[in-house]
């Protein structure tokens, strides 16, 4: 027995740096949204799956740092250069925020680990609205420039960038009203105070079930997969894609991303990548994606980097056109 331990110890010292990373103390999950937000649900779902399937021995501590549209969390993580115990959860706000606000971190201050899912965007209107397809909606906006109001979460963030893109592609003009969250924009639409929003499926599902809002089209390359009907015999699969309905934006989605601070060892990145990969293959994860109507898609390494570069380029075009870029 003793011999075995000695041997093991010897092996460990010998193998030293080549030994794979394994967390030996609690890992902090830094959530770049407040409790109850989309990123919070994402991180807590990952946490619960890791715990259930014992994918990691070290305990997990979740902290919410959602201040400043999530900048608080990224700045915090960026301050722990080389620390493999700070796993940060976000969206594309990691590389978007530094372009629109003078936040004290750069996108390069964090190392990409993986993307686990893509959240969808749809155009929604009030359930009683006269518009039944995106074409008539856009035509109405063209007829009265600036009269139709889009509500969305935050300013110069994914929602407003999408609204700006729609305006640019169609030549219509909309008024954008920023709210604190997608949930607020959902209720404002259900109450008929705004004309439309571009919420994620999860943010409007409850209101759609009750027929208080209805979807016009979805910004994904193909339709949603078949699922149970949500309202009035219609389900997610029955929603046309925006491109198919005559609005030429065939893909606009938001990645659910995980990051480590810059300067961590490749071993650590590989370790978490494997854990997250296993998470994404569990039935619980498939269940989460289905319930929230997100597309489960695991991307890491070069895939993730390429996706990020492409996404960033598209967004920067909008920011430049609108004059939102900060230096």
């Amino acid at each position: 027995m003793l011999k075995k331990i000695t041997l093991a110890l010897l092996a460990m010292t010998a193998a030293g740096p080549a030994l794979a990373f394994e967390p030996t103390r609690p890992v902090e999950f830094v959530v770049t949204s407040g409790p109850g937000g989309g990123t919070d649900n994402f991180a807590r779902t990952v946490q619960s799956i890791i715990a259930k399937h014992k994918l990691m021995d070290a305990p997990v501590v979740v902290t919410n740092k959602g201040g400043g549209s999530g900048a608080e969390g990224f700045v915090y993580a960026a301050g722990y250069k080389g620390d493999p115990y700070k796993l940060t959860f976000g969206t594309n706000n990691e590389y978007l925020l530094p372009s629109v606000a003078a936040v004290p971190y750069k996108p390069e201050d964090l190392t990409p680990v993986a993307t686990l899912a893509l959240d969808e965007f749809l155009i929604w209107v009030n359930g009683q609205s006269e518009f039944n397809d995106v074409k008539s909606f856009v035509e109405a906006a063209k007829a009265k420039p600036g009269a139709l109001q889009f509500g969305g979460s935050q300013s110069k963030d994914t929602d407003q960038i999408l609204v700006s893109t729609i305006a640019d592609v169609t030549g219509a003009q909309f008024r954008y009203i920023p709210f604190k969250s997608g949930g607020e924009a959902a209720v404002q639409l259900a109450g008929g105070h705004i004309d439309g929003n571009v919420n994620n499926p999860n943010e409007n599902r409850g209101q759609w079930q009750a027929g208080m809002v209805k979807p016009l089209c979805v910004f994904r390359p193909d339709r949603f997969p078949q699922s149970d009907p949500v309202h009035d015999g219609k389900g997610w699969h029955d929603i046309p894609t925006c491109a198919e309905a005559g609005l030429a934006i065939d893909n606009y989605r938001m990645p659910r991303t995980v990051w480590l601070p810059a300067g961590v060892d490749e071993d650590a990145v590989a370790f978490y990548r494997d854990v997250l990969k296993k998470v994404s293959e569990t039935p619980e994860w498939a269940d989460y994606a289905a319930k929230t109507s997100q597309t489960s898609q695991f991307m890491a390494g070069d895939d993730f980097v390429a996706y990020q570069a492409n996404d960033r380029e598209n967004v920067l075009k909008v920011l430049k056109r609108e004059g939102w870029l900060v230096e």
Partner: protein
Amino acid sequence: MGNFGYLMDGFATVITAHHLMIMMIGVMLGILVGVLPGLGAPNGVSLLLPLTFTMDPISAIILLSCMYWGALFGGSTTSILFNIPGEPSSVATTFDGYPMAKNGQATRALTLAFMSAGIGALAGVVMITLLSGWVARFALQFSSPEFFAVYFLAFASFIGMSANAPAKTLVTMMLGFAFATVGMDTISGGLRLTFGIPDLIKGISFLVAVMGLFGIGELLLTTEEGLRFNGIKARVRPIDVLKTLKEMPRYGWSILRSTLIGIWMGITPAGPTAASFMSYGLARRFAKDKSQFGKGDPRGIVSPETADHSAGTSALLPMLALGVPGSATAAVMMGGLMIWGLTPGPMLFIDRPDFVWGLIASMYLGNVVAVLLVLTTVPLYASILRVPFSIVGPVIVAIIFSGAYQVASSTFDMWLVLGFGILGYLFKKLDYPIAPLVLAMVLGDKAEDAFRQSMLMSNGSLTIFWSNPLVSTIMALGVLMLLWPLIAKAAGLRRPRRPATGHPAKV
């Protein structure tokens, strides 16, 4: 089957040994997180959330909601005993609760607070039971202009409530607005007043400010005045609890008014904090004898507590019926609902009546359990004040600083607490009122967002605040409140002055 039938089914689901056990645990944990400033209900509930992933949704929501009730009760305890609000919504309770405890009537203050809190909460649940459908539709009518009108009304009903010089009130209120703007701006997406300090991006937490202004500020004063709490000589007798219960009916009118304010603010949803401030302001305004307010007037405890709890309870209705959380804690629970596989929204009442009415039944029982638990422990809490200050003082300092750290796990916040503590001390020394600063900090940010959203909607025209009967009514009420002192004066001038009989001599 009417709501009543559903409710009975709900009780049948909830009254099991298992669920009652969960209720007790939830309430006790809640009291604990409520008593510790900084931890608070939203943080407490999110800490507990992972534990509920494997539970069935009904047990899970009972655990979380009972924790919420417990935290609301716990928050009042520290407000009254140490002038440290455990929850933002119990700030208004400090105004009269702490002076009363200082006068040696801690038991009375705590009992008043807990009883009125319990009544408020039950009133909120009754409202949910009776009016769920109607209220959900009413809440939908609220948009940015209506929200602004509500905040305007909250400010207006609070104006003129402090006895200090108006200029001093204005100064502290403006400071509060400035603190509220720190951080990222919702409307423009830009950073404001952060001075390049990374720790300021998240803004200044209201809790941190309050813990410094009230907690540390008070401790500094106590230290200066000779290291003692005046309350320590008071005898703590359990019989005082019963005596206080007997005087409750006297505050019937205050309780009724505060309940209505609380329910309204909970469902709109402007939240329990706005409700408690507004209710305190109105209680003072409509009191015939205002001289005792701020010195331990029972109505100054009963009113904010009732409103706080009826708002906290009612806030769950918009969450369930519309999917819009009425408070930070409700937001966390909503996240929980989604993880348990339920979609908050109008269909929840139809799809899962067992869940919704189980929850509502548990709200009745949970609050009764909470009131009984806290009332029996009142003497225990009150005797804390008999511990010598040289022991309690340092413990409070430690609790405040660890609490400030827990708000956002930020060491910078501990420095902020210290800064606010010194500010609070100076304010008290120079006779500047703190309440307007706190009110401006809580509602300033929301009022600003609502105002600017309204301006975006109307293309910059102020007429949007008079554009429909709802918003016009609230605005008119606000203006009336604002001008009330003038109106009262004018009315008083026309009447011949009565001889000032029984007028208490000014100290």
